[in-house]
Every structure is written in C-alpha cells, then in structure tokens.
C-alpha cells in the first residue's frame, strides 16, 4: 500500500472554493481557487480536480480530505429540502412554561412541518433525576409511534441539564433506533450546545431539519471524490476549529455552519506558527477579526442567531468591519472615509488602477506602495493624480480601522501579534514597531483551506457542580478528565490530548454552592 502522506483541505466560501494540498510536514504543495457554485458540490469537485493537477500527487497517497462546507447553512437560509421534524423535550414535570419552537418564525416552522412532544425525565443541576432514574418506555414508544404514523422524518431531542448528564437523551435515541430503525435520524441537544435549554433545543431542531439535505450532499461528495480516484477518509471542519468524521457530519451537519471564519483563523495561525494571536481576514468587502487562544478560535459568549432562531452553537467570536480591498474611498479635502460600500468582486473592472472610475482601498494601497499587484491590467500611472495627503490619510485610516477591531477583540491588555490573511490583506501594510507586531505570512490567500486541512479533534463539557462534596480544584480536575475523554471519543489521539480552554464560575444568587465549569480538550486526529 502506498504511504499516506498528503492532506487535502477545501474551504467553500461565499465567492470562492479554495483547495490546498499539504505534504507530510504540513507544507503547502499547491493551492488553488475556483468559483463557488450554487450546488456547492460541483465547485468542490472542480477545486479538488484543479489542485490535484497542479500538485501532481498520487491520489493513492492521500491520507484524508477535509471539507469546510456551507450546505447546512444554505438549506436553513433558503428553507429548501428541510426534513419534517418532531421535537421531543424530556422535561416533565418541569418545562411547560415555554414550549419548543417559541419565538420561531411561522414560515420556518411550516417549512419543517415541525411539531413537539413533552415527556417525563431530565435531571437537576446536581444530577438527581427530575422524574425517575430511567425514561418511561411506554410513554416514549407512544410518542415514537405517533412520529412514525404522522410521517416525521427526523427527531430533535432535548433534555433538562443534558450538557451535564446526557443519559436520558441517549436512552431515548436507543429506543428510537429500536422502534424506527438504526437509520432514523435523531439529533441529541447535548451533542450540540451548552446550558440554556431553549437555545440548545433550537440548535438541535435546526440540525434535525438539515440532516436529510446534508446526508445527500455528503454522499454526493464521496461519489465525486471516487470519480477523482480518491478513496481516503473524509472529514468535515466544525465551527470550533476541529474536524469530525463523515459519520458524525451526517448526524450533526449544523456543527459546520461557522467553519469558514474558523478555518481562516486556524490557517493563519498555522502559517505564522503561532498559538496565540489575533487574525484579521481581509476580504473584498469586509474584514473578520478573530482571536486564537491556545490554537483555537475563542468562542462567542453570546447567543447566535441562525435563520432568525436564537441558538447557542459554539461559534467563533468575530468582529466584522466594512473594510476590504474593494471598499470605496471618499475624501472631502479633510477627512477620509472608507467603506462600508464596496465594489466587491468587480474590483478588476471598477478600481481606478484597473481603468475604472471608483477610488477603492486597493487604489490607495497601490499608490502608497503598500500593495503590489502583479497584473498587466493594473496600471499605477492611473493613480498619479491622487493627492499625497489623501493617500497618507487613507493608509492611516485603513490601519486605524483594522487595529481598532483587533484591539476590541483582545481579552487582555498584553500585546498580541496580528496575522493578516485573505485576498484583501494587500491593503494593510505589514509594518513592525514596538507596540504592534503585524505578520503577513506566505500563502496568506489560502489560509482558510489550509485551516480546514489541519487535523485535530475536540471534546467539551459544560456542567454545574455542587460544591458540597468536592472542592473547587477537585471539580475542575474531574471536568478536565471528562473533556479529555470526550475528545478521545471524537477521534483524538490517546496521548497528547490536553485541555485547551477552561472556565469555572460560581453561579450567581446561590452563594457558595454551585460551580459552573466549561472545559474543552483537543488533540491530534488519530489516523
């Protein structure tokens, strides 16, 4: 058998689908771009075909292909092909005050023809059962029979305190498999979100509604890879910057919806060889600024809206500003204003350097000698009429906008290096001084696809721990152990998997009694 030495990473963005090939030392062998297509899949196919050709590698030597895709998001936003969802909340005798799907747009409920059931079960924060140790099987089977009768295609299960104790959700899944078959899709809320039942349940429902679409798409991709002669393992990039297996991606497709920005953050860090840094991904219209802590993007503390629904997905914390290579520049003789309007992908028609008549951030950067664009259509003499003061002020403004966003995302006053990536990053000078360290790595244009290719697996826990029987330190140790065990279950290597993020906060209004601990562990993927 051929030695497996190459990795392929693909990232599907709004405009481009990028692909890279990495060698056994994770060095870039080839990087390409092609247009993102409406069906997503054919764009991926074209990109991989192109990168295989360019790199000239033997397809039998590919260790794995990892994909950052947007199938799930598209299905939710377009409300097309959504599965018919039954929501089961394991909560009685509590939980009736706010029913599942509360606050949802009626049209989205209609698009997934959703209904809900409440059944007995769930736990208290300290692990005591709310109703009984196990589920009432008769009650569960009655619900499952109704679900079968009415033709529901997918189930979302939520349960009180399941992020701390998932026993009842798992028991329900087992009974569902028994009654409806192993292949019937059941989404467990504990696999998706953290504490906050309604938001976690919403996340599970969204997932349940796209499992059908995602399964089709995933199998389509496998077929496409086979056509290219690739039969290696396939992984999918998750929101939190780790990879999941094909099997899991089919069950939990919604965990991929924030993978785009995560991938570029991770890729940027890799390119610059940093574990802790700020990443500014400058595109054509906007700049996304994220922060990398111990190798992973920091996650947002706020609830995230997806398709108008409040969720608690683990999404990367980002600050977006309306500044990109195509941002339109205005000057009143005194002040320079840049963006948020942009010529976007039409930069090669509309920017002045390219013969157009709109002054863009790229023109300013070219005139200042910050950007160098190797393109016969780009003619610097067209910019000679520009006022020197305008150019200076324009560059200062670009710097100010990017640095302000970077300052805003920091969690501590200590200086952090800033890595610039993305096609639009040519507009930002990579100057160095004592206060700010800016880095523009080689291959900055393909950071996203590269981020998708770097393989790690992770596990997370989020629970409330009574401090009656254990000390704070003992609780933290236990939470760490659980997170590591979960990461290993998700495919991380046995040794070398470690805790990368830890938060322990006592609950407000319960003085001295309960500690909330969130822990996340990650490790290299076991191949």
């Amino acid at each position, binding site marked *: 058998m051929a030695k497996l030495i190459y990795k392929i990473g693909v990232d599907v963005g709004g405009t481009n689908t990028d692909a890279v090939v990495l060698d056994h030392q994770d060095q870039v062998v080839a990087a390409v771009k092609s247009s993102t297509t409406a069906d997503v899949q054919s764009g991926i196919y074209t990109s991989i075909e192109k990168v295989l050709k360019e790199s000239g590698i033997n397809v039998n030597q590919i260790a794995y292909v990892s994909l950052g895709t947007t199938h799930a998001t598209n299905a939710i936003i377009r409300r097309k092909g959504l599965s018919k969802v039954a929501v089961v909340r394991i*909560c009685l*005798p*509590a*939980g*009736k*005050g*706010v*029913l599942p799907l*509360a*606050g949802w747009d009626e049209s989205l409920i209609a698009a997934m023809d959703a209904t809900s059931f409440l059944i007995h079960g*769930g736990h*208290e*924060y*300290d692990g*005591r059962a*709310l109703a009984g140790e196990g589920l009432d099987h008769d009650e569960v089977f009655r619900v499952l029979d109704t679900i079968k009768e009415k033709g529901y295609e997918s189930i979302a299960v939520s349960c*009180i*305190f399941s992020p701390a104790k998932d026993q009842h959700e798992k028991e329900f899944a087992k009974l569902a498999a028994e009654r409806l078959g192993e292949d019937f899709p059941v989404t467990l809320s504990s696999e998706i979100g953290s*504490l*906050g*039942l*309604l938001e976690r349940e919403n996340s599970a429902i969204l997932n349940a509604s796209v499992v059908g679409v995602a399964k089709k798409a995933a199998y389509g991709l496998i077929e496409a890879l086979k056509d290219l002669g690739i039969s290696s393992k396939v992984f999918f990039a998750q929101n939190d910057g780790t990879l999941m297996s094909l099997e899991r991606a089919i069950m939990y497709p919604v965990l991929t919806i924030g993978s785009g920005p995560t991938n570029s953050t991770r890729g940027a860090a890799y390119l610059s060889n940093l574990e802790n840094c700020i990443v500014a991904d400058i595109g054509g219209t906007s700049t996304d600024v994220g922060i990398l802590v111990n190798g992973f993007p920091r996650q947002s*503390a*706020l609830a995230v809206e997806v398709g108008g629904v409040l969720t608690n997905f683990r999404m990367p914390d980002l600050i977006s500003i309306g500044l990109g290579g195509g941002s339109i520049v205005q000057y009143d003789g005194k002040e320079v204003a840049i963006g948020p309007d942009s010529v976007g992908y039409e930069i090669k028609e509309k920017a002045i350097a390219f013969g157009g008549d709109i002054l863009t951030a790229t023109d300013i950067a070219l005139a200042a000698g910050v950007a160098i664009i190797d393109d016969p259509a780009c003619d610097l003499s067209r910019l000679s009429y520009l006022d020197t003061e305008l150019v200076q002020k324009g560059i200062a403004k670009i710097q100010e906008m990017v640095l302000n966003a970077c*300052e*805003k*995302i*920091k*969690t*501590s*006053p200590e200086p952090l290096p800033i890595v610039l990536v993305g096609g639009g990053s040519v507009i930002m000078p990579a100057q160095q001084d004592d206060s700010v360290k800016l880095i523009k790595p080689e291959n900055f244009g393909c950071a996203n696809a590269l981020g998708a290719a770097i393989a790690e697996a992770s596990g997370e826990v989020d629970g*409330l721990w009574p*401090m009656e029987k254990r000390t*704070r330190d003992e609780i933290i140790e236990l939470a760490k152990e659980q997170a590591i065990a979960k990461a290993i279950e998700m495919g991380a290597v046995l040794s070398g998997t470690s805790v990368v993020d830890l938060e*322990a*906060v*006592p*609950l*407000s*209004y*319960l*003085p*001295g*009694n*309960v*500690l*909330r601990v969130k822990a996340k562990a990650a490790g290299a993927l076991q191949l």
Partner: protein
Amino acid sequence: MARLIGVEDIEYLAIGAAVLGTGGGGDPHLGKIMAQQAIKEFGPVTLLEPDEMPDDKMVVPVAMMGAPTVFVEKIPNGDEALHSLRRLEEYLGKEAYAVMPMECGGLNSTIPFVVAARAGIPIVDADGMGRAFPELQMETFNIYGVSGTPMVITDERGDWSLLNTVDNNMLEHIARGIAIRMGGVGHIAEYPMTGVEMKRSSIFHTVTLAIELGKAIVHSREKQLSPMPQMEAALIKAGYGKPLILFEAKITDVDRATTDGFAKGTVTLEGIGEYKGATYQVDFQNENLIAYQNGEVLATVPDLITFLDLDTFKPLTTETLRYGYRISCLAIPTPSIMRSEAALKVWGPQYFGYDLEFVPVEELNEEAKIRG
C-alpha cells in the same frame, strides 16, 4: 388610570428591566417569552395605578428566587408562582386582589405577568426595590414594617413549603436553603399585604418605568440618538433622580474573584473620548455596587450603576462583560424611600462589606456633565 399590558409592552419591559437590574437580576429573555406566551394564551394583563388598589384588599408580590442559570435550563411550567399564591390564599383564607413585582430589575420583572395573566387578576404598578437585589429582606416592604411571611415557595415538580419566620432575615436564610434543595430555583409568593401597607411601603410606577426605559433604548437605537432625554423623563416621572453618564470607557480587565463562591468581582476600565486619561473601577456582587474614578468613589449602592453598550445602548449583565467592551456607565439616583437610614442599613455599602458611607450619586458628581 389602569391600562392593559400586551405582548409588545413586555418586549420593552425586558429591556428596561435589564437597565434597572444594574448588571444582575438575571437575563429577562426567557421570562419575557414566558410572560408573552401567558398573555397570548390568557389575554392582556391589567396594570393598576397604585392608588387604584383598594386599601383593605390583599396584594401579593410574586417572584422566582435562585440561580438564573438554572432557570434557563430547567424551564419552569409557568404555574409555580401561581401555585404559591393559591396556597398562600388558602392559608390566609382570603383572595389576592392583585399581584405585584417584588423586584422590577432583571428576570423578576416578568414573573408577575405570568401569574396575573393566568389568574386573571391585575398587577400593581409598583415594586419593593426599584432595581435588583440578591436577598429577600432587601425589600422596601421589609424596611417599612411588612412581614415577609407567611410565604409559600413552590418548585416545578409541585413540591411546596409554607414558611412562617420570626423576622425577614430568617425568611431569606431558610428560603434560600429550600431553593437550593429544590434544584436551584423556587417560585415564591411573599409579603402578603393590604392596599394600605403596599401604598406605604412600595416604590410606585416602576413597571411603567421599565417599559418606558425599554422604549427609550429601542427608539434611540432606531434613530441613532442618545436615549438619555427620554430615559430622564421616565425616571423623573417615577420619582428617581436625574440620570448621569458617569463615564465612557473601555474595559481593560474583569477580575472575577471566585475563591469564596460568590459571583463577585471587579471591572477595571480606561476612559475614552472626553474621559480619556482616567481609570475607573466598578465592584460587583451579582449586581454592580460601587463605581470609582482614580480611586475616588463616584457612586454606591443603592443608587443604580448600569453598563450600557456604547453603540447599541443595550444594558449589559456582569456575566457578559469582558476586556475590550466599550461602555457608557449610567448612574441613576434611587428614590428617597430607598435612602432612609433604616433602608441603608439593609442595602447600604456597609451591608455589602464596604467601609463606606452612602453619599447620593448626585452629590458625589455635582460637577459631572449631564449629557443629553
């Protein structure tokens, strides 16, 4: 005049209640949905002017007590506080004419609406602290001579307990223990009182105030204008003092001291704009308690100290604060009923462990610019 409160008013109420929550009191989001669901099902709720409450009839404050983190995970059934009210009525052998909030700040601003909609009785436009506080004796009802008990506490499973205590400090002590055993949250009906007692011991128009503050923030966000003039008008009308922007600043550190198990800590900030060069500090224990500028006290509890997001004016809870946030620090002078000697013993800075006398925020900041 009494008026009807509908689903849209609750939307505003939740935002304004977060301002009055002074960083604590729990995020009103889930309580808001619960109240809206109850109003959709049972119809709008009548909000009574305090003087419309008959002198000899009974009014009962209803609330949840315990950890908001548990509340949003173990979603209640919506009838727990009503259950507490019914058991209390049975015990006392009389019916409640109306309910009212004990706490108009945070999550507890919404609970009386859930109860009132289901029971088909009105809510009195008044509460017992005009803000958020962590303990049951910290209510004006207590200061002005109303007994907190008999009180009933109920959980989601239907477990309930009737309490009679010698004083209101003991009520807090025992009830907190029960709430923990109930899984972190209990739903209560407490301080049953007559219309006369309510009129003597409560802060008027605080429900309307929360709704008006919410409107001010939503409208100013839409128009990109400062919410201060509209907020000031609403506060003055409710008997509070003129609100001040103490400073605009960027958070440079959030130190959550976690060793003794309290959700307490300190936020350090650096002035921005016209406040550049100054360093600020705000201490919190569940709620924001004391604000300092370069070590000098700017405001202390029970005056209200709330952080608003600089761009959206959204009120921020202490849990969400972190480095880099740009905020306006709003201070609101509490109504005089909150500042009596007896009141300050229960919730002045000394009760929270500070060796500080309470000085009204308007006196501490006589020269501060009042921004409109």
